[in-house]
């Protein structure tokens, strides 16, 4: 289980994440939702160890991750929000490098990379430089790199970004399959329909603070709203969306 206890992060004294406490259990897919700038990616980066929390604890299976950050990184797979990759390498070279950096056995890793490239339909382009890849292809490289070492915890920050319909469906099933095999999956997305279909449990963040942390069924019942979109709108959207869209249309016509 991944646990966050009273985690806060301040940048230049300004809170980006404030007193966040929630847990993501093994076998479950936890959706981590929130509007732009609510602190989702900051939380993800704290969990990966990319940035340090100002206060609070992050624990995995009861042990603070900071206790042995190297061992923690060995158990975690991460797909970042932006597909920044070393574009002078080919897709294959990038994945081989990730395998080596994770100290994985050479032969098994080569077979695994080959399999992932085939299943993600990148095999024919494996020797092309990443600079020539489309956004979707880059996303597939990121997913392959995150899954290469069979991690216990998978952090997915906008994983569907740029993927075609077919690969999107594959990824959706894959996330469910991985959770069914006992992995902890923390999944951040703006695609509420997908979250609703995939996740058993959601955490909604607004202005750096948690405003909901429960199963989707219970939230529906509690708030008497039939969809996740409705729940999200009530908890995290402050604006009158219809009024704003009317104003925009008026503004550009003026």
């Amino acid at each position, binding site marked *: 289980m991944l646990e966050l206890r009273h985690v806060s992060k*301040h940048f230049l004294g300004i809170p980006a994440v404030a007193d966040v406490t929630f847990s993501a259990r093994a076998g479950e897919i936890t959706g981590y939702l929130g509007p732009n700038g609510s602190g989702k990616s900051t939380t993800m980066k704290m969990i990966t160890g990319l940035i340090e929390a100002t206060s609070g604890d992050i624990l995995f299976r009861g042990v603070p991750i900071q206790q042995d950050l190297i061992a923690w990184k060995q158990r975690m797979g991460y797909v970042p929000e932006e597909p920044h990759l070393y*574009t002078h390498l080919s897709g294959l*070279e990038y994945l081989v*490098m990730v395998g080596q*950096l*994770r100290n994985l056995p*050479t032969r098994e890793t080569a077979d695994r990379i080959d399999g992932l490239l085939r299943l993600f339909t990148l095999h024919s382009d494996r020797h092309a430089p990443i*600079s*020539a890849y489309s956004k979707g292809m880059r996303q597939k490289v990121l997913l392959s790199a995150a899954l290469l070492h069979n991690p216990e915890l998978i952090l997915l920050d906008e994983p569907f970004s740029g993927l075609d319909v077919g690969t999107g469906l594959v990824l959706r099933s894959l996330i469910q399959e991985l959770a069914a095999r006992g992995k902890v999956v923390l999944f951040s997305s703006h695609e509420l329909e997908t979250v609703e279909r995939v996740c058993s449990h959601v955490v909604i963040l607004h202005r750096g603070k948690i405003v909901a942390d429960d199963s989707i069924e219970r939230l529906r019942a509690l708030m008497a709203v039939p969809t996740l979109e409705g729940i999200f709108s009530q908890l995290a959207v402050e604006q009158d969306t219809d009024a704003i869209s009317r104003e925009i249309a008026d503004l550009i016509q003026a």
Partner: protein
Amino acid sequence: MSKLQFRVLYREFLFRLVDLELLSPDAHGDANKLLGQIATVLTMYSVGLGLGGLLFDHRGMPAAAFEIFSMSLEHFLISTTMLVVGLFAVLSWDSTFPDRRDVLVLAALPVRTRTFFLARVAAVASGLALAVVVLNAGPGLTWPLTLSSANPSFLEMALPFVRRTFVAYWITMLAAGTFLFCSVLSIQGVAALLPRRIFLRLSSFLQLGSFVTFLSVYLLQPALASPAALLAPRNQKLLAVLPSYWFLGLFQQLNGTLSPATAPLARRAWIGLAIAMSTTAVAYALSYFRTLRKVVEEPDIAPGIRGLRWLPAFGSAVETAIVQFSIRALSRSRQHRVILAFYLGIAFTIVIAFLKDPRAQRQMTAGVNAPLMMSSVVMLCFWIIGTRMVFAIPVNPRANWIFRVMPIRGGGQCVSAARRSLYLLAWVPAWGVSAAIFLYSWPWRAALEHVILLGLLGAVVVELALYRFQKLPFTCSWLPGQAFARVAFVAYSFLLQLLVYEGGALERRALDEPVLYAEILACLVGVVATVRWWITVEINAEESVVSFEETQTPIITGLGLFRDGVLSTQAGE
């Protein structure tokens, strides 16, 4: 063409002559500091030469000697301007054509291709003009006055404040710079008419080739700036291919001091300038519009060469990953290769200056000689130092998150990987080439003895270069403003030049005296072991965290007396 569109694009392209994404967040993503540094170097050079012009007193100098002096100086200033413009052309190589980002962003906007093209040309021309003006601001004010005071012309007598030499100087410098830059552009333009894949592959070779050519011509061209040398029939073939002398002729013509020796050179300068400008106008314009169409369809970098994909293991898995990454980064990044070539160019200069010394020339006639030995030492040292400098410049700082989320320990593992990379990319090629040359041309025993000492000396430099290197090569962001390292590097390179004379003589003696050789060998082995031990102790004493952001040492140290919600003096917290 909309003036506003042109202004916006011009400004954007002008500030994009430098790649801002390489800079550390501490540099606040702003190119001012970097541009300031470049301008400072040029200004220092300019002020130094300008002061020389002010302080120079030619009274009492015979007329013939003054003529040779002024011609040599004019030639030196012209060839230096051409070198700086050449380096500018090499460094802004990729900025002269539109990249994919430009095309994708601007294609959706109602901007005419002509506006886009003219803004790009204007930005590059402004950069070029600025470089020429900054470089010549000092000498361009003082030397024309000094040089012209010997032969006042009618114009000077009529208008004391407008000196013909002054006008001639600036026209010549701008014409020389334009000639060189247009020549580079026309070569690029003609190459860009080839299929884009071939062009991308050829482009990096052309860039490196241009860099080496400019530096070699500047350093190796013979001194022919005297009437006798310019008229000598044996020099005519050489003068026909050395543009810096053509522009010396042009200067003399504009200055009203044209002689039979310089008249053909001036003619050649005008013809050369006309050809370069017209070829550029056609080739660059054609290739620019073609590139605009092709850039969207094809990748930015050409696919790797098939045979070079496989690389062997270099130690543990992590070390192998880092070393392979370093090899691929250096072999595929044109920018990094050019910077390394710059350091090798400096080494080449020192070697040439060293070998041209009459003392060295005398020794060169003997078989086993100190000058050649020391040339190999200089090349090896500069190759290692240049590669270490290049390690500090990132390939893509935004992509380094992958190393940050990997289970990599700092300290020994990090240094070991960097050490292997440095050995492979610098020590092995430099030492290998030297070993081949010495084993081929010298008696095997002397060659072997020198090659062993050379290898050990290289190992000492590698170890010293890794002092407190808690980084992975090509991953840490770069912070401009650390001029000390560069100043120290230049200072040490001159110190090295002095040391090589003494070291060369000592080694030459050691090759004849086995006891002395054994002592030097033992001493070097001891130094390598000690430095390596010292580096390891230093690294282990520090926190074992790999550094990915170059941070600025604050001038004022904060006490950290702040709480959450109160503005901190420490960035990021």
